[in-house]
C-alpha cells in the first residue's frame, strides 16, 4: 500500500517508507484558559484522506491551522513532509502544500480565471490554469467575477486555487459547509479527482456523509481532543450494534423493560423519545411493539436506520454533531 512517490515527483527517494506525510505529537494550543487543542497526536500517510470530525468549536480549525503553519502551537511537534514549521525554509515547503481555509473570501472584483492565475503565479511549479479550470468545472464561469458566484462555485474556485500548485498535501477546512447537496456533490468530485492523483488530504467536516465518503480514516474530535480515531467502518463497528431504532410514545412509558429486548446494546433518551442500538432490527422490533402494546400506549413515531458516525459521535460525546 505504501507508495512514497509524491505527485510532484519530488524528494521521495531518501525518505523511508514509513515516513508519514504529516506527523504531530502532543500538540497543545490554549486561547486564554481554554485549550483549543489538547495533546493531539496524529500521523497521516501519503495518499491518505484523513478526516477531522467534530462540532463547531471542537478545535478542528485551530488544529488544522497549526498543521498548516499558520498558527504556532504552545507545545508539541508538527512535521509536514519531514519539515518543522519555522525551520527557516517555510516558503519552500509552502510550495508543496495547499490550503483551503474556512470562509476565505477571494477578491470580489476579480474573475475566476484571474484569481486562479494570481494564485498560480505564487508557485514555481504547478498545473496549468486551464487544466485546473477544467478539473474544477469552472469553464463556464471563468470570466465571471467572484462576487457573482454561487456558494458552490466559490468553493470550487477556492479548491482550484489550492490545486493549481499541484500540492502533495492538501488541507481542506469544511469545504462543503453551507452548500446544498448538489453543490456538495460537485465539490466532492473535485476532491476525489485529487485523491485519484495520489494526493494526501487532511479534511475537517461536520458532515457524516462527507467523512464516510471521502475519508480513509477519521478522528472524532471534541473539546480539543481526539475521542476516537479509526476508519469510518471500524468506528461504526465499535458501537457493537449495526442498527438503530428511534421511537416516541405518549407519556407514561415505562422504559425498564427495554434492556431485556433481544439484541439491544444500549438505550438512550433523546428529545422525549428513545434511541435503541440493536444488533438486528428484525429481531428487536416485534418485541418492542409487544412491550408498547402491553403498556397500552400509542406509538407516535418510529424510525429504523443503520448506525452511522453520528451515533458514534453521540456515544462518545453525548452531544449532537450539528446544531440544526
Amino acid at each position, binding site marked *: 500500500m505504501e507508495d512514497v512517490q509524491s505527485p510532484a515527483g519530488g524528494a521521495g527517494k531518501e525518505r523511508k517508507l514509513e515516513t508519514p506525510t504529516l506527523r504531530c505529537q502532543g500538540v497543545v494550543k490554549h486561547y486564554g484558559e481554554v485549550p483549543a487543542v489538547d495533546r493531539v497526536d496524529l500521523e497521516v500517510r501519503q495518499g491518505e484522506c484523513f478526516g477531522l470530525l467534530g462540532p463547531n468549536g471542537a478545535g478542528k480549525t485551530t488544529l488544522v491551522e497549526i498543521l*498548516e*503553519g*499558520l498558527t504556532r502551537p504552545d507545545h508539541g511537534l508538527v512535521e509536514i513532509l519531514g519539515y518543522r514549521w519555522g525551520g527557516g525554509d517555510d*516558503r*519552500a515547503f*509552502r*510550495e508543496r502544500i495547499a*490550503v483551503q*481555509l474556512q*470562509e*476565505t*473570501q*477571494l*477578491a*470580489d*472584483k*476579480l474573475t475566476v*480565471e*484571474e484569481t486562479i*492565475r*494570481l*494564485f*498560480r*503565479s*505564487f*508557485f*514555481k511549479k*504547478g498545473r*496549468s*490554469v*486551464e487544466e485546473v479550470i477544467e478539473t474544477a468545472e469552472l469553464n463556464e464561469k471563468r470570466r465571471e*467575477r467572484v462576487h457573482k458566484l454561487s456558494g458552490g462555485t466559490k468553493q470550487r474556485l477556492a479548491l482550484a*486555487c489550492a490545486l493549481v*500548485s499541484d500540492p502533495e498535501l492538501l488541507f481542506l477546512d469544511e469545504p462543503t459547509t453551507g452548500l446544498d447537496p448538489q453543490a456538495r456533490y460537485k465539490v466532492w468530485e473535485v476532491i476525489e479527482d485529487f485523491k485519484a492523483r495520489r494526493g494526501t488530504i487532511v479534511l475537517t467536516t461536520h458532515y457524516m456523509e462527507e467523512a464516510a465518503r471521502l475519508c480513509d480514516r477519521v478522528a472524532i474530535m471534541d473539546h480539543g481532543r481526539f475521542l476516537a480515531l479509526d476508519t469510518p467502518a471500524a468506528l461504526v463497528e465499535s458501537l457493537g450494534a449495526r442498527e438503530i431504532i428511534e421511537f416516541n410514545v405518549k407519556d407514561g412509558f415505562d422504559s425498564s423493560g427495554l434492556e431485556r429486548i433481544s439484541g439491544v446494546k444500549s438505550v438512550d433518551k433523546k428529545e422525549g423519545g428513545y434511541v435503541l442500538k440493536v444488533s438486528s432490527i428484525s429481531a428487536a422490533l416485534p418485541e418492542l411493539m409487544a412491550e408498547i402494546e402491553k403498556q397500552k400506549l400509542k406509538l407516535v413515531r418510529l424510525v429504523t436506520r443503520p448506525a452511522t458516525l453520528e451515533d458514534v459521535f453521540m456515544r462518545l460525546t453525548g452531544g449532537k454533531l450539528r446544531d440544526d
Partner: protein
Amino acid sequence: MTKPGSSHPLFQLTLSRLRETIREPEAIFWVFVFPVLLALALGIAFREKPASKLQIGVEDQKGAQELAGLISRSTELHAVIISPDQEARDLRTGKLDLIVSRASPAAKIKSAAPAQVASKIPELVYTYDPTRSDSRLARLLVDDALERAMGRKDVIAARDQKVTEPGTRYIDYLIPGLIGMNLMGSGMWGVGFAVVLARTRKLLKRLAATPMRRSHYLLGFMLSRLIFLVVEVGALVLFARIVFGVKVYGSLLDLAVVSLLGSMTFAGLGLLVASRATTIETVSGWMNFIMLPMWLLSGTFFSYARFPSFTIPFIRALPLTALNDAMRAIMNDGLPLFSSWLEMAVLIAWGIASFAVALRVFRWQ
C-alpha cells in the same frame, strides 16, 4: 489568448490591484472625479472678478449725485446713492466697503448754499469698519479721489509699473494643494482600506499560506499606486491648465518626482494605519483621525502662515504640509527640485518610518 505557464507574482499582484481598483466605481469617483469637481467649484467661487471695484455708498443727501460722480471717476471705485436707513446694513454685510456722508453741520446749512458742493470746502464723514482691509483701502482711495477732484496738487510724480507674478491667483495656489490632498487620500485609502478588507475576509491569511513573498504583496500596492498616480496627478494638472490656465512653472519631471515621493509616503502611512486593524470601522476612524488635521493645517485651502508662529514648525513637519509646499515650489514658483530638499526629507522620513513600523507589526491574520 491565455499565456502558458505563470507570470511573475509581482506582476500578477499589481495587475490584480489595478483591476480591483478600476472595477470599483466609487473609488474611481473619489480618486479621479471628485478632485476635479472640487477644483472646478473652488476655482469658480474664487475666480478673479474682472471688475473688482470697491463699493462706496454715498448717503442720499443734497449733492450726493455729484459726489458719487467724482468718486466713480476712479477706476478702483464704484459709488452708489444709498438711503441713510439702509447704509448700516449694507456696510455690515460687506455689500459696501465705505459710506460717505456729509457732516451734520453741513446738513444744517444746505439751504444756504445750494449746488455749491464743488466750490465750497465740504465736510465729509467716512463710515467704515477699520478691521476690514478693503474698507481701509476704500477710505484712502475715496479720500484721494475727492482731494484730487477738488484740486489737490501732487508733489511727487509717480507712475505705476504693474507686475503679474506667476501663480498668484487663488486657483494657482489651490491646485497644488488639491494634488497633495488627493495623493494623501488615495494613498492612504487605496492601501489601508484594501489591506483591512483583505484581512477581514481572511484573504491575507490565505495568501500567507502560499509561498508568496510578503514583500511582493506590499510592493504590488506600491506599483499599482504608481500607475494610478500618473492618471491622478495628470488629470488635475491638465484640467487646471485647460479650464483655469494654471501653469506648471517648474519642471514636469520634478513634479513627477515629488508626486511619487508623496504617494509612497502616504501609501506607507496607509499601510501603517492598516497594519493591525481588523475592522473597516477601526481603520476608517484612524484614517480620519490622521487626515482631518492635515486637511486643515497643511495649507491645502489656505496658508498655514495664519496659525500662531510657535505651531508652524510642527505644521511643517506634517507630511501633507511638506508635500503641498514642495508642490507649490515647483508648480507656482518654478523652483528646482533641490530647493525643496527639506520637504523631501520630511516626506522620506515619514515614508521610511511608516514602512519600517508597518512591516514589523503587520498582522497577516
